[in-house]
Structures are given as structure tokens and as C-alpha cells.
């Protein structure tokens, strides 16, 4: 485990360094408080520290205060080293955010025991963070597909539309619906249906860029937000995504199944004053137009000045690519 030693006294520093290296620690040694704070405030900096009380630039308690100010850091367990023995000094040290203190000259057995205590606290903190992250993931992701859940993808959609509206950056919204999904469930059972949805989700994720968003909108419906996607490349991107599912059968536990999806697409940088719900209604209508036109195809929403809800359904990928 990485540990930081901050001490301006070269004897104390070397003594600590050797003792801790012998105990198996990966030691980073610095000679002033400023350097200590810099190391400890790095995201991948040491999480265990021995800080001398009296140091140039920043003293030990000041280093503790600096580190505790950084709320986004993982917990740093800090022990103050002091030859001050007064209770008031100890109270001051612990009040600055230190976890423990050790009086100089230290006993190596006591030092190692106190560091083990620190490691236990850090381990516990690691488990708590892991549990919190698991809960956060469960609260924001769909349990079956691990995609963003409906609440999150809707929030992201609202945020992206605002951003697009502000910066006049083109964005594309894709609503995908697995074709004949009810028939898959009815013929092969819900477990196979689940396998199909999981594989469809995986392929959708693989077919977008890291800064695009994919979420499970409903049962067999997926919502995709393509950021910075200009109207020229949007049809091509949508077609690639559609083909990611249709081109290769889905391997299920009862064998390969051919699965396709229909897609409604809205692409613009001119969002007007329409609400997210209105936009989704339009994309939904486009998706139903694709279904009505024979499924396994893409339909685009109407341009701003058109009178019908949907522009057209694209019958073949070749025709669509020619647009």
C-alpha cells in the first residue's frame, strides 16, 4: 500500500522510510507540507499519511485541513507525528482533521499497529463506497439490460436538448422497438425474450460512441441520443445501429434467432419550443410509421414546416443511404 511521509527532519524521514519499506509499504517521502498536500490531493495519491506537525510551508494540521476540504477525494487516513505532548496540542491536531497522532520518537511496533488501524478504516471506506456505487448503479440502470433506466435516459434527453438548443449543436434522437417481440415471448418464453433484450442492448451500446446515450425506454423499446450528430450523418448512423441487430442472428439458449427492430428518428439543431414529451411523441409516431411500413426499417420525423407527424419510412437501407 502506498503511504506518504512528510517530515522536514531528514533523520526522522529516513527512519520512517526504512521502517515502512521493511513493513511492505510503498513509500513516498517529502520534506514539506505543501508537497504533502499536493500528493494527497491527487486522485491516485496515497491514502495513508504520516505528517510531521512542524513543517515549512504548511504544518501537519494545515495539511490535514487542506486534504479534508477536497470532498471528491477518497478518504485519506492521516497520522500526525509530534514531539508536542500537551493535551491541547493533541486536541488541535485531531480537530484539524487528523485521524490519530504518534509521539516522537516513535516505537516501530506501535507505528505499524496504528497504520494497520488506518488500513482497516480505509478498507471499510472502500467497501462503503463500493456498496454506494452498487446502489447508485441499481437506481440509475435497468436491471435486465444494465442500460440507463427510463428515468435517467429521459433526464439525459432533456439535458441534451437544452444543450443542443443553447449551442445550436445537432442531436439525433432514436427510438428503437424490437420487431415481433411479443411473438418471441409467446413462442419461446420470457426467458428467451430476456436474452434477446440483453443482446439487443449490448449491440446498441457497441454501435454508439462513448459520449452517446442508450437507455431502456419501455419493454422492448430503447431510446438512443446521438450527441453532435449532424443531419447528414444521422441516417447513416441510424442505419448502422439498425443493422447491428438485424445483420447477425441473436444467439439464445434455444439457438440463433433472427431479430430486427424498427426505428423512429428525429434529428435537428433547431428544437423550437417543443417539450421533451412532444418530441418523443413525434419520434414515437415515426417509429410506428416504420412498423406500419413493414418493420425492420427507419422512419424520420417530419421537418419543422411539414403537416404530417412523420416524414417518411425508409423501405431499404440502400434507399436510406442515398438520402
Amino acid at each position: 500500500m502506498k503511504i506518504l511521509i512528510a517530515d522536514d527532519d531528514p533523520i526522522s524521514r529516513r527512519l520512517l522510510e526504512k521502517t515502512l519499506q521493511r513493513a511492505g509499504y510503498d513509500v513516498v517521502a517529502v520534506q514539506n507540507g505543501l508537497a504533502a498536500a499536493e500528493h494527497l490531493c491527487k486522485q491516485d495519491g496515497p491514502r495513508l499519511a504520516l505528517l510531521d506537525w512542524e513543517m515549512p510551508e504548511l504544518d501537519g494540521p494545515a495539511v490535514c485541513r487542506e486534504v479534508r476540504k477536497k470532498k471528491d477525494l477518497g478518504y485519506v487516513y492521516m497520522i500526525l507525528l509530534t514531539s508536542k505532548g500537551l493535551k491541547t496540542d493533541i486536541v488541535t491536531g485531531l480537530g484539524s482533521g487528523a485521524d490519530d497522532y504518534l509521539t516522537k520518537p516513535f516505537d516501530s511496533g506501535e507505528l505499524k499497529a496504528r497504520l494497520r488501524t488506518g488500513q482497516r478504516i480505509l478498507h471499510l471506506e472502500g467497501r462503503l463506497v463500493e456498496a454506494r456505487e452498487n446502489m447508485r448503479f441499481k437506481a440509475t440502470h435497468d436491471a435486465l439490460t444494465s442500460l440507463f433506466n427510463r428515468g435517467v435516459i429521459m433526464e439525459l434527453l432533456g439535458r441534451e436538448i437544452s444543450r443542443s438548443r443553447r449551442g445550436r449543436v445537432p442531436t439525433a434522437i432514436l427510438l428503437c422497438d424490437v420487431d415481433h417481440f411479443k411473438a418471441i415471448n409467446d413462442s419461446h418464453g420470457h426467458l428467451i425474450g430476456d436474452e434477446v433484450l440483453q443482446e439487443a442492448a449490448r449491440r446498441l451500446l457497441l454501435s454508439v460512441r462513448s459520449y452517446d446515450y442508450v437507455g431502456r425506454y419501455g419493454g422492448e423499446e430503447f431510446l438512443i441520443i446521438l450527441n453532435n450528430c449532424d443531419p447528414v450523418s444521422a441516417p447513416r448512423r441510424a442505419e448502422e445501429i439498425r443493422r447491428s441487430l438485424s445483420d447477425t442472428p441473436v444467439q439464445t439458449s434455444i439457438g440463433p434467432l433472427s431479430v430486427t427492430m424498427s426505428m423512429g428518428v428525429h434529428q435537428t439543431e433547431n428544437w423550437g419550443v417543443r417539450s421533451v414529451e412532444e418530441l418523443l411523441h413525434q419520434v414515437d409516431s415515426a417509429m410506428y410509421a416504420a412498423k406500419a411500413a413493414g418493420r425492420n426499417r427507419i422512419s424520420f420525423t417530419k421537418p419543422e414546416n411539414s403537416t404530417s407527424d412523420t416524414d417518411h419510412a425508409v423501405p431499404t437501407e440502400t434507399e436510406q443511404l442515398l438520402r
Partner: protein
Amino acid sequence: MNVGTSSVLNITDLLNRVDNDRELVSELFLIFKSVFPSHLQRLSDAVAKELPKQVEAESHTLKGMLLNLSAVRAAAIAAELENLGREKKIADMSEALTEFQSEVETLLLQMESVEFQT
């Protein structure tokens, strides 16, 4: 090798604290010999110029080094100088400094006399 419990340099205590690493003790002595003169110079200057805050700070640093070396008597005099600085007892500083210098001279001699078997 003198491993007695000398009041000037308690080598037994020091060896205990470094897990009997004699090479490390020799290294620590070398570090002390190289950094001590400049610290002593700053302490002497602070006493001569009657700067209690500097006397307190410099004595504190020396006290820490000496405690780490198990040089208990010199560390005690450094602690006394630190207190004099904190309490601004300028009149008593010169005498304590003389005592400190004498004690450290003995300490340095004792460090020289410590020879470890390799």
C-alpha cells in the same frame, strides 16, 4: 561497540527502535553529522540576536532529531531551549546553549566511537 545505556546516546534503545538495523543507525549518524552544523549555527545566531521565536523553532527541530537518535540528554537541553524561546526568557538562553553545545560535542564523540560489527 558500546551498547550500554549511556545517558548521552542510548544505543540499545536506538537499535530496538530500528529493528536492530545497524546499517541504518550508521546512516542516521551520518545524516545528523551533515545537517547538525547548520542547525546549530541558526540556533546560535537566534540566541545571539535574541530572537525567541527562532530559538523555539530551531530547538524544536533539534529536539526531534536527537530524540530519534535516542540522545536523551541533548534532547532534554534542546527541549529546555525550546521552552525558554516559547516563554521569551532571553536571559537564560546563552547558558542553555553552551550546555547544549557541550552535550552535543560529547554525543558526536560517542557516535564516532560506536563501531558495528559487519
